[in-house]
């Protein structure tokens, strides 16, 4: 491997890890504000940074992180130290290393050097993800057993049996996708979806989407499948005896699981980086027009946002009587500056021809933004479902997994096979 290739790989690892780890505080904020929005209340909005920036509550995530890091880290006397320490490590390791095979945009070439937007391109891509998710069961089992407490053990046994059952449903539900795109690699699955809305996998395999999405909820231990962490029933399930940073690591693992699950759903079923009816060749050819359009749109939105914030500043000046009043003014100024910058870019781009590599990088960034937008929509769906549906009882959960989803998965494979056979 050349040194440039090694440097690129290390850079990719660092960027992807940082992206995933930084998305988690954002996700916590979305969860708390989203829950509040659904439950018709305000949500946390008190923590400030430098006394002036509240940002609608994002600072709360940083405050939570500081609190969790500085709490006392205790463990009970009879607990098995090795297992207790190992369990959150496995949870976080598995959740993050799954992202090694997820491509964030299409591969592009600049001057003959091709850049892959994946950390590694295994030819068993999606199965690598299932293999690592099946390792996350150990985190639950070891946490529950090592804590040496009956609540933890009950929670761990329930959680792991639930995860094992729905892992089978998860694997079975994706097999029709392998049959449709004839490859295990996520790159090929996204490429086979094309740009027409009728060839996205949500239309070609809708039952697979329903099964996959439901099994994903069960894999991430989210409501309606969160009996293992049911606060009203089991104190806190398998992480009862955990505090401070170890609990934070479990939390991190669960939210990263949600993020990676949403990424997978967009890649597998909703076309990944394909913008509907706009193919990448079109983008490559007309990159100047596209960039200009985007800059105009961005300038308009930023100007509207600045105007709205300025209006808010004028209406509520003096409401708190201290520095917090000036927050809207600060952000109005920032957004106005952004609008001015984008407008200047529009004028600079008019009639200019850009070099080749700017086109490739711009398309790559666009595709990555499309992927992240779709992913954010599915993350919002996770949070939406959490605060809408009640929890399943344990026997209902098991019945659903074994008696409904696995037969449906097998039926799905069979029907897909028959249809493929008849249409070729």
């Amino acid at each position, binding site marked *: 491997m050349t040194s440039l290739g090694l440097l690129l790989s290390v850079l990719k690892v660092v960027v992807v890890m940082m992206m995933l780890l930084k998305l988690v505080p954002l996700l916590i904020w979305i969860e708390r504000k989203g829950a509040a929005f659904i439950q018709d209340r305000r949500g946390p909005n008190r923590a400030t940074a430098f006394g002036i920036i509240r940002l609608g509550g994002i600072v709360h995530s940083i405050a939570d992180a500081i609190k969790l890091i500085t709490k006392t880290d205790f463990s009970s006397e009879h607990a098995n130290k090795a297992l207790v320490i190992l369990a959150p490590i496995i949870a976080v390791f598995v959740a993050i290393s799954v992202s090694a095979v997820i491509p964030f945009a299409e591969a592009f070439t600049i001057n003959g050097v091709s850049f892959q937007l994946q950390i590694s391109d295994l*030819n*068993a891509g999606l*199965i*690598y993800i299932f293999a*690592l998710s*099946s390792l996350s069961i150990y985190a639950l*089992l070891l946490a529950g057993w090592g804590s040496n407490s009956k609540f933890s*053990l009950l929670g761990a*046994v329930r959680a792991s049996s639930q995860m094992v059952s729905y892992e089978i449903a998860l694997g079975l539900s994706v097999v029709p996708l392998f049959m449709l795109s004839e490859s295990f690699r996520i790159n090929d699955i996204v490429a086979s979806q094309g740009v027409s809305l009728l060839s996205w996998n949500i239309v070609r395999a809708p039952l697979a989407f329903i099964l996959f999405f439901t099994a994903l909820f069960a894999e991430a231990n989210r409501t309606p499948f969160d009996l293992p962490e049911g606060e009203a029933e089991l104190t806190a399930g398998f992480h009862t005896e955990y505090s401070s940073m170890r609990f934070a690591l479990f939390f991190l693992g669960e939210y990263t699981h949600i993020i990676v699950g949403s990424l997978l759903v967009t890649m597998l079923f909703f076309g990944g980086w394909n913008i509907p009816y706009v193919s990448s060749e079109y983008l490559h050819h007309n990159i100047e027009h596209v960039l200009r359009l985007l800059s105009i749109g961005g300038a308009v939105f930023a100007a509207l946002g600045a105007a709205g914030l300025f209006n808010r500043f004028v209406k509520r000046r003096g409401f708190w009587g201290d520095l917090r009043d000036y927050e809207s003014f600060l952000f109005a100024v920032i957004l106005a500056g952004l609008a001015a910058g984008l407008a200047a870019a529009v004028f600079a781009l008019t009639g200019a021809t850009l070099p080749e590599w700017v086109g490739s990088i711009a398309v790559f960034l666009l595709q990555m933004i499309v992927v992240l937008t779709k992913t954010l929509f599915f993350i919002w769906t996770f949070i939406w479902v959490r605060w809408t549906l009640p929890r399943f009882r344990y026997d209902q959960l098991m019945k659903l997994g074994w008696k409904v989803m696995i037969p449906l998965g097998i039926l799905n494979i069979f029907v897909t096979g028959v249809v493929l056979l008849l249409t070729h």
Partner: protein
Amino acid sequence: MESILFYIFSGVSIISSLLLITRANPLMSALWLVVALAATAGIFALLSAPFLAVIQVLVYAGAIMVLFLFVIMLIQLGPQQLKPRFIRFGKIFGAALGIYFLLLIGFSLTSSTTMPAVALSETFGDPGVLGELLMTKYLVPFEVISVMLLVAVVGTVVLGKKKF
């Protein structure tokens, strides 16, 4: 690079197998077996079989060992039973077997020549090629294995029932 990886993976697998057979607590043995299986998956990847490495982690370390852990947690042994029980003269038998097999290793090193490696085709170990082989050349074993898995499922359910 390949040699370094080979020595790391083989060292990890041998050390964890040694630890596996000497631990008192079966739970610790199971965890060391998981480590050994993961190291073996690394060896599979070095042997140009990345698909099988992933399948090994998925099936062995992810499903079979979870089953083992469930059973070990069900059969909760009290603290007084956790002394490891070896057979009589266990250490002597173990040492004798070990020496015998070390001699085997020594003989195999000195008495055979190395095979030259054949160049691998482009699609070596590809899942598609494996699937084709399974469906054409090895079709009968494939069907027999599916019947055997069904027999295993039914047998395990019957064995686990409390009353008939």
